[in-house]
């Protein structure tokens, strides 16, 4: 019998488990696959404040940014404080970027067109300017998730953190209305609370409990280059279009170059967004467009080779906000999913706030914008 069962061993589930264990709770994490085998394993490891519109998600992002820095001190993964540089193609876009940065109220530096190459020497010469966000960072997401679980399991004397991998949740155990555990491919696991941290598959877990949670996949491809001997790109660099694409409601293909170097020497090139269900078929036109946008930003990449690509499925909700909190429709069930492309960045704040809920503390951040029942309210 655990105090808390966390469904999903991705980065959000790992953070929930970590903070719950730290708060003294017994935690069991179940996942049908390995650690970080879903969307966490298909991402770039972004920890961004720069791409958030002012509002509740930005508040989460700022809280999370600080928490990641603390977590990284325990070791097991590296927190790369590389900074994000958003670039503008025209003076008009540069003005919009500058205005946005002022509204966000996070640490930033406005960079004029002439100074861009002081920050990124290989950037194309025809850009109007940009905004640098020093807090933007990156982690290796699988290592970070695994390290959180490991650290959580080893560090806390009162709570215990158990990991059950290769175990598929098939239903819920109930006592009256209340959820008191999960049924799995390997028998029942009992607990006082169940946290749905199943990411893109969070809607399916919710459905097992008889509630609707509109989490859907939004496919993204990432191109990976050959490892470079000398780092070509210092920051995470992206164009202003990325921010509008994230918030877009289009089902069609959208691409906006997000380019960065990694410690392994490779350059990662994202980001595409399409709503095509769970279709993994590679789209050469998408890869081609990502390559074209990358070369336009960094002409030196023209002769650099792409050696592989992969795709993942971001869990998105209609309002592009995650679902965090207790589900009033099913006592005992909590949700922590639907973080779209920001799950790595928002994971610690999500875990921290959920642990506060689980232990009856008042959450540091107002969780109302993230409440699970908000979609059915709108429908009603």
């Amino acid at each position, binding site marked *: 019998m655990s105090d808390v069962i966390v469904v999903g061993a991705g980065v959000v589930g790992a953070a929930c488990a970590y903070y719950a264990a730290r708060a003294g709770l017994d935690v069991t994490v179940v996942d049908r696959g390995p650690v970080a085998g879903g969307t966490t394993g298909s991402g770039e490891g972004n920890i961004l404040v720069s791409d958030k519109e002012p509002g509740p998600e930005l508040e989460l992002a700022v809280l999370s940014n600080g928490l990641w820095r603390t977590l990284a001190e325990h070791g097991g993964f590296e927190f790369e404080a590389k900074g994000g540089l958003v670039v503008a193609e025209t003076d008009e876009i540069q003005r919009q970027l500058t205005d946005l940065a002022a509204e966000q109220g996070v640490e930033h530096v406005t960079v004029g067109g002439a100074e861009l190459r002081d920050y990124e020497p290989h950037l194309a010469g025809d850009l109007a300017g940009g905004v640098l966000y020093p807090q933007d960072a990156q982690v290796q997401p699988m290592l970070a998730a695994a390290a959180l679980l490991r650290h959580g399991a080893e560090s806390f004397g009162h709570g215990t953190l158990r990991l059950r991998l290769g175990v598929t949740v098939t239903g819920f155990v109930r006592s009256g209305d209340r959820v008191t555990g999960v049924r799995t491919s390997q028998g029942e696991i009992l607990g006082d609370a169940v946290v749905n941290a199943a990411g893109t598959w969070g809607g399916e877990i919710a459905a097992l409990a008889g509630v609707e949670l509109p989490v859907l996949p939004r496919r993204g491809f990432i191109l990976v280059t050959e*490892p470079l001997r000398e780092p070509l790109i210092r920051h995470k660099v992206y164009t202003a279009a990325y921010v509008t694409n994230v918030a877009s409601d289009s089902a069609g293909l959208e691409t906006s170059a997000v380019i960065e170097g990694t410690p392994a*020497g490779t350059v990662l090139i994202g980001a595409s967004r399409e709503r095509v269900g769970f279709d993994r078929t590679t789209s050469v036109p998408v890869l081609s467009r990502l390559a074209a946008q990358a070369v336009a930003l960094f002409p030196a990449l023209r002769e650099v080779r792409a050696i592989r690509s992969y795709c993942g499925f971001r869990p998105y909700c209609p309002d592009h906000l995650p679902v965090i909190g207790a589900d009033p429709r099913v006592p005992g069930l909590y949700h922590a999913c639907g973080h779209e492309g920001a799950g790595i960045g928002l994971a610690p704040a999500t875990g921290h706030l959920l642990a506060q809920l689980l232990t009856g503390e008042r959450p540091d951040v107002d969780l109302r914008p993230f409440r699970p029942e908000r979609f059915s309210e709108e429908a009603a």
Partner: protein
Amino acid sequence: MTFHITVDGREIPVVPGQTVGAALHAAGVRSWRTTRFGGRPRGLFCGIGVCFDCLISVNGRPPERACLLEAEPGDEVTTA
């Protein structure tokens, strides 16, 4: 019948049709790059374009697979 290419300025003979990798190996040059983490020497391994161990820069171009690349007269090869 044979021609020459240079490896770090040194001339080595090539039989027409030989790859850069075969010519180097035949001349006793069995490694021409080092790995990026451990600095370990690398030359031919699979010999058929699969393993990418034999990457080499010819005439200043980005690295290519020496085992696939036919040598041409006057090629200048630099090892790392």
